[in-house]
């Protein structure tokens, strides 16, 4: 079974995101970018399935500018076998990414697609679900454990009340949650080897997908500064403040 893993190049989790002064977006100039952490978990899961003999080739896919090649090389240094970059400098929203991935699934015919549950830059949490919808496949989102059986997979999900276990038919879309696994460290010789693994580049037009944004971004701004806390004398004052000032009860 072939596995397709989607990896996004996103602002590094250590970096404090800062809106541009004109509010048109987050300032990314010379800011450290890396693979979205949930996508790292997705790649790791694919590799573990391969190591366990449950999967064949692992194909990593990224959508975005040329710099996403780095992200694909990281996925390949971790253990993915080859990479596909859908190259575009335009904005790509979740629906467009899902359509691009669908086009690649049609071409590559994987038995399993693994994505991160969301990307830490826009936190949309939509691509996996949309992809499953477009493909008409089953989905196991927020996966905390994945087991591949014969023609089906069992996916454990962390839901509000506890752990939910789904049995889903293959082919399947899985989105990775934080506790699915802990990604491995990339080893130096593997980075070198990854440089020699195949990396194909296609464009949205090659795949016949229109990526025109459907949603308009109005403004990006800092959250309002948090006002300092106050000490209240008793419950009555607390209730009064919650009702009259905070207006939450």
């Amino acid at each position: 079974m072939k596995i397709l893993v989607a990896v996004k190049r996103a602002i590094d989790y250590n970096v404090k995101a800062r809106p541009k002064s004109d509010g048109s977006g987050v300032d990314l100039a010379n800011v450290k970018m890396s693979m979205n952490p949930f996508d790292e978990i997705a790649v790791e899961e694919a590799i573990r399935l391969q190591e366990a003999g449950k999967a064949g080739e692992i194909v990593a896919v990224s959508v975005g500018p040329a710099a996403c090649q780095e992200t694909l090389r990281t996925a390949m240094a971790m253990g993915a076998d080859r990479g596909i970059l859908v190259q575009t400098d335009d904005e790509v929203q979740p629906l467009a990414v899902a359509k691009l991935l669908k086009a690649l699934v049609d071409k590559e015919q994987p038995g399993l697609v693994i994505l991160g549950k969301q990307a830490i830059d826009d936190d949309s949490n939509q691509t996996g679900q949309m992809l499953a919808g477009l493909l008409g496949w089953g989905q196991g989102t927020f996966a905390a454990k994945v087991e591949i059986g014969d023609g089906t997979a069992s996916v454990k999900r962390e839901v509000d009340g506890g752990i939910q276990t789904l049995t889903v038919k293959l082919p399947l879309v899985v989105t990775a949650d934080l506790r699915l696994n802990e990604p491995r460290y990339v080893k130096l010789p593997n980075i070198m080897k990854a440089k020699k693994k195949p990396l194909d580049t296609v464009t949205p037009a090659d795949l016949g997908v229109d990526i025109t944004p459907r949603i308009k971004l109005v403004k990006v701004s800092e959250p309002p500064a948090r006002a300092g806390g106050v000490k209240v004398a008793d419950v009555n004052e607390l209730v009064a403040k919650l009702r009259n000032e905070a207006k939450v009860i």
Partner: protein
Amino acid sequence: MEREAMEFDVVIVGGGPSGLACAIRLRQLAAEQGRELSVCVLEKGSEVGAHILSGAVLEPRALNELMPDWKEKGAPLNTPVTDDRFLFLTETRAVRLPTPPTMHNHGNYIVSLGNVCRWLAQQAEAAGVDIYPGFAASEVLYHEDGSVKGVATGDMGRAKDGSEGPNFAPGMELHAKQTVFAEGCRGSLTKTLFERFRLRDGVEPQVYGLGIKELWEVQPDRHHLGRVTHTVGWPMDTATYGGSFCYHLEDNLVVIGFVVGLNYTNPYLSPFEEMQRFKTHPAIRDTFEGARRVSYGARAISAGGFQSIPKMTFPGGLLIGDTAGLLNVPKIKGSHTAMKSGMTAAEAIFELLRAEDEPGKEAVDYPHRLKNTWLWDELYRVRNIKPSFHWGLWPAMAYSALDSYVFRGKAPWTLHHHPDHESLKPAAQCKEIVYPKPDGVLTFDRLSSVFLSNTNHEEDQPCHLTLKDDTVPTRLNLAVYAGPEQRYCPAGVYEFVTEAGEQKLRINAQNCVHCKTCDIKDPSQNINWVTPEGGGGPNYPNM
């Protein structure tokens, strides 16, 4: 422990201007002469540039020599210096002084050295250099005959107590015919080489400054593209070496920084708070009206100059850039000299390997070559300016003028240094300094500042700030010097806390910005800074 090994012709430790220039020059020579030559650069930052903190006004001299077509290749040198000011500050006033000859910046550019390094890394990769960011060189490896064999990268995934965690990955050995140490100021491996090969015998001790820097986005009407301002005087007393730099970059960005000589004597002095206080000066604060601070960081800088340059070669390797102290001190410029030393070393290594293509040889030709370049002449001429500051600001200014204008740096004497860790006086002999509280608009506390350096270290790993003796922090540092590490560390890593009625030093290693000040200033040299897991440390954008 068995570790995997990889072989290269040249391994370079550190992806700063010196290491990258060296790597590029090596590949250029190899291409020109049609030779195979494998070159690898290790960088402890998560990416090249992540750990680079500089002013920076860049003299393009070395870059012109390395890549005359840097403009076409898109080097981020966008802002020529247009206006050069030198101010003397009193608490309330600013007096404009004639700009000293060593400070003239005509033809230079205001840059982010981190971005220049990001660009140099791209050029190096295009030239066939293997660059590995996120890997710290944590150990020097030796052949049986004592020559340097290469370096090992640190283990990944060790727990705090040193045990192997679930994702443990052992370090790698990188073997090379020549290993180049380009670690920048106070390199942690260089320190071990100084001892092993006695490289500092017969030279003056290295002395340092700590530079603290902030990047601000200012209102357009406060921005003067290309302006360079340096100040001396307030808030330093005249006995302490220190001064500021302020550069107006593109995109309404302004850099403001303060350098304090680490030979200061009062343990109550806090370089961080001096920097905060400095910004409130009437001649300075205006620029930051309505502005937004976007980044913060700190880094030590070598200030010993010419007389502190160690022996730079040993069997199997050599030193380049600021780890060898190759910096023009009165100019506080070291990136052009770092690059030039890297290029010169590359040429020496290339010739050496052409004659004797085997490991463990000594590139003795490198210092000779360096002595015949403009770099050596430049460093020699300014050698007496910094040490003259031992006499206090005014005599030093007078001396510097005499030295620069009359002797033109060729005075027939050379002044001496004392190591920085010996300079602190016991707290009992000093006056406590009360610093103003931060206002959260122009001045800040340490933690909100460190936040902007994007610093992080994987939490569960052995502490990289190692103490030779656990009792020294309270027994000596706190008892005699009132705990100076709480004040000199610009990242708030060291904290004295009371636990069960006893005072204890707490080390918040996760916050460390790798400035190396503690390794330099600890009074009994009890703190040894070693590399943490690769990729840890600051993630400076545009610094």
